[in-house]
């Protein structure tokens, strides 16, 4: 039984994001939601605008870093927050979609700006239960 979900986990100065899902792609989607939640409650974000992302990396773990860094870049340059994600992974390539809206400070209590996804506590693995877990620390 796999409970699709996201979590934050502690780090000395920054924050960890963790996605759990039935597939690697689902775990990546959940990790991205955890990233949004570092800034603001994902439930307060409208999924109005679609942004497409592509990335590739030599292994699954660096692919997670690239995926999260891609989202951070879109958040920073479009001044957007994202509420929903869809990921397809084919080997070392990832095609992602993110739905969100331009930040509205009257509705979003934007706590921090994520600076970058790091290789600290970086793991992408399938656990004995069959669930996939994708996680790393985000520098904020």
């Amino acid at each position: 039984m796999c409970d699709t979900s996201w979590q934050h986990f502690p780090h000395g100065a920054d924050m960890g994001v963790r996605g759990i899902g039935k597939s690697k792609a689902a775990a990546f989607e959940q990790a991205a939601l955890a990233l949004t939640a570092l800034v603001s409650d994902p439930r307060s974000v409208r999924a109005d605008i679609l942004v497409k992302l592509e990335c590739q990396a030599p292994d699954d773990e660096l692919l997670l870093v690239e995926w999260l860094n891609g989202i951070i870049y879109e958040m920073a340059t479009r001044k957007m927050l994202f509420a929903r994600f869809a990921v397809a992974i084919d080997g070392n390539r990832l095609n992602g979609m993110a739905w969100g809206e331009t930040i509205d400070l009257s509705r979003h209590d934007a706590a921090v700006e994520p600076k970058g996804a790091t290789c600290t506590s970086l793991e992408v693995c399938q656990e004995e239960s069959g669930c996939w877990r994708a996680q790393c620390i985000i520098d904020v």
Partner: protein
Amino acid sequence: MELSRLQQKAENQWHIAPYGKMRVPAIIYASAALIRDMDDKVYEQVTNVAKLPGIVKASYAMPDAHWGYGFPIGGVAAFDAAKGGVISAGGVGFDISCGVRTLHTGLTLDQIEPVKERLADALFTKIPAGFGSTGKLSLNEKEMQAMLTGGAKWAVGLGYGGREDLQRVEEDGCIPGAVPDEVSERAKKRQRDEMGTLGSGNHYLEIQHVRRIFDATIAAAFGISQGDIVVSIHCGSRGLGHQIGTEFLTRMVAAAPTYGIELPDRELACAPIDSALGQAYLGAMRAAVNCALANRQIITHLVRQAIHDVIPRAELPLLYDVSHNTCKVEEHMVGDRKMELFVHRKGATRAFGPGHPALPESLREIGQPVLIGGTMGTASYILAGTHEGMKLSFGSACHGAGRSMSRHQALRQWRGREIIDDLARHGVLVRSRSLRGVAEEAPGAYKDVSAVVDAADQAGLARTVARLEPVICLKG
């Protein structure tokens, strides 16, 4: 961290002799109490840094050291290019050239008390801060190139401050060797609208009161007296630096095997200084340093405007500007030899001692001002570089309090509104767009900055000059 794992050499100096693949010892400058509170990750990281090629003398951790990325935050290490020394993106950090600058105001506490609320509101209105904020400038490609090459000098050229400011900035406001072409289009795009913005997280702008002077001679040379009001700005290279750090970290991870570098931790990703990738990173990193210096210069101008709107007679010359996430080429004595070294300071402040030629003439005899950021509820400090520090840590000292509690824990323990109300009762006005951000930055989530500064002073890294307490704090 268990003290039994370390060998005590002096009251605030602890050694780890080389073992395994360590090329040099690791040295931690801190009190026993601070070390007991340090995460074991600091031990792991400071010893991992000692394994990197070309490291000289030792891998150092400052009194505020805590768990970082590859390097501990509060880590210092110098590398010799001629001995295969490396440059590490993790050793500089994501917020390249993040730092602190402090301005005099010519005002005293009793002069600002009657206008404190107005002043706080004026600063909050004038200085963009927090997620999604943008500055008034939007740089085109040519302007971006000029900013990345010119740093604070570029900003002064546009009318943001005066030439006299530049003498009080490391590198005279512009680090040479920046190569804007090594900065990706994505990094430039991320920065285009962010000039003159404060950012979020632990970045802040504070109006501070000089509460106590510890060294009257040095304080007089720095131009500060008890009761003075100063302004301190803590921020860095914003989106551009973050993007450069991110991109080069993954490039260095991928390239390490081709250089025969065995990484004990992927975050220690590095490249030989003399390699194409090492040189590319140096060029891009220096461009980010200039971006940070320009950013703090523009914010300085906005601060002056905001304060003049409320108190027209205020004069705000720059005391000094330090960066605490950098890698700089410096000459240091190693034994009886003068060597050119690439000194990484990750969450550590340059603290050059008296007589250093890099200091402006007006400060050369006394030593470099070392600006240590605290929390919005406690204090910040001004220290001065020492002769001893040049030998102990390549002229480096701590950079702040350092967190004792994760943001996660802080959010569980505090509410932003309660912190703002509590600080107001103690005379500190906080302005922030995010209550959650205030809770994450709760003063209680940080180590005791006074204990950190005492340890730096007693270890000989720098000399304590003044204690500053916040009066107004702007958080991103």
